[in-house]
């Protein structure tokens, strides 16, 4: 029979609509005064649909949410190299970037004149960036990640929308807070890789 899917879909919509009121009667004033009222109304387990009261109440973005990329550096309390960027300026991100919005300058050692695996300049024009996440996908050092911060509107694009190294840099702990599952996955993958490398070196 044709149209069964449409009826099912409309049923879900009606269920959400009815739940909005039914749950209100069930939970009463608690829904608006309890400690976890925002997550109760806007979280994944929420019943019914509510207007997001935006500046006061923000929908939590999913972990895989993508906005503007940022560069990962070591935390300030890292034992060996605090603030050390993970980026080696290999340039893979700028090569895969479909709209070509990344510009990297590799730094050179002032004594020997040889290239150092560190970016001297790193620019992303966020007026070109299409938030595809290819840079984060292809980076072999987990050094570039997609940020969750979307509140970045400004009055002037020439001064505010070309992100330089200082604006892009964020510590690893920030990445751990916005994407805990993925950060943990990447950490285990890195450790496994290093263990295999050490095993090989021993032989």
């Amino acid at each position, binding site marked *: 029979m044709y149209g069964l899917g449409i009826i099912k879909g409309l049923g879900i919509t009606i269920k959400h609509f009815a739940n909005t009121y039914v749950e209100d009667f069930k939970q009463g004033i608690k829904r608006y005064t309890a400690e976890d009222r925002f997550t109760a109304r806007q979280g994944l387990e929420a019943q019914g649909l509510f207007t*997001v009261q935006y*500046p006061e109440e923000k929908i939590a973005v999913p972990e895989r949410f993508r906005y503007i990329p940022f560069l990962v550096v070591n935390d300030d309390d890292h034992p060996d190299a605090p603030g050390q960027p993970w980026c080696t300026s290999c340039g893979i991100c700028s090569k895969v970037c479909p709209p070509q919005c990344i510009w990297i300058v590799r730094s050179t050692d002032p004594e020997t004149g040889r290239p150092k695996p560190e970016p001297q300049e790193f620019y992303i024009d966020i*007026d070109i960036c*299409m938030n595809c996440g290819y840079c984060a996908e292809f980076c072999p050092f987990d050094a570039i990640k997609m940020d969750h911060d979307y509140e*970045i*509107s400004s*009055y002037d694009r020439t001064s505010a929308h070309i992100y330089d190294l200082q604006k892009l840099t964020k510590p690893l702990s920030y990445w751990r807070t916005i994407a805990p599952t993925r950060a943990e996955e990447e950490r285990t993958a890195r450790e496994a890789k290093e263990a295999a490398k050490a095993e090989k070196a021993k032989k």
Partner: protein
Amino acid sequence: MSNEAVSLHNPDYPVPEELRHNIAITTLDRIYNWSRARSVWPMLFGLACCAIEMIATAAARYDPARFGMEVMRPSPRQADLMIIAGTVTKKMVPQIVRLYNQMSEPRYVIAMGACASGGGPFKEGYSVVDGIDKFIPVDVYIPGCPPTPQALLQGFITLHEKIEGQSITTVPWYRKGEGEAIPVPVLGPDLIDPRQTALIRNVASQPPDTSDAAQEPATD
């Protein structure tokens, strides 16, 4: 919103303690801007994928009626705000500039998304304008591809802050004399004329000239 309400009732003028509950003092600028910022009516038009996010923002879930912005006017005469939502093609620019000229002052422009702000992924495309600010003045830029509804709402709040910072004595629309209209750009001829397709094919099918005489100007 609460801090804005405080700023509305908090002039730099001392009110005696016993009269605090009976008297509210504000400045003309504050009350003028407060009422203006809470009734910004956007114009009903969208250009590309960002328009879908704009529609999502206009719907009940994000509800711009909380900011007094739910009335999308289909006429530029009744609109205060132009949301450039999407890729601006060269063919569309004359119409946008004409609509902007038809809007009555005070008027504001939001460049929503990467394409409207700076061309986005189509920056070097033959048919795309890289940034609407080349033609009309833009007040707020919202990055993102596309900006989520919450990012657009944050852009609205940024615009409200800008409106509240303006002063009735300096705004251009109360000055004497007429403001100048922005010249409407004219779409020029295409880079490739379809009538010359046969000629172009003919040239392209020739083997490239690799003699030294042909190479020399290229190396200069």
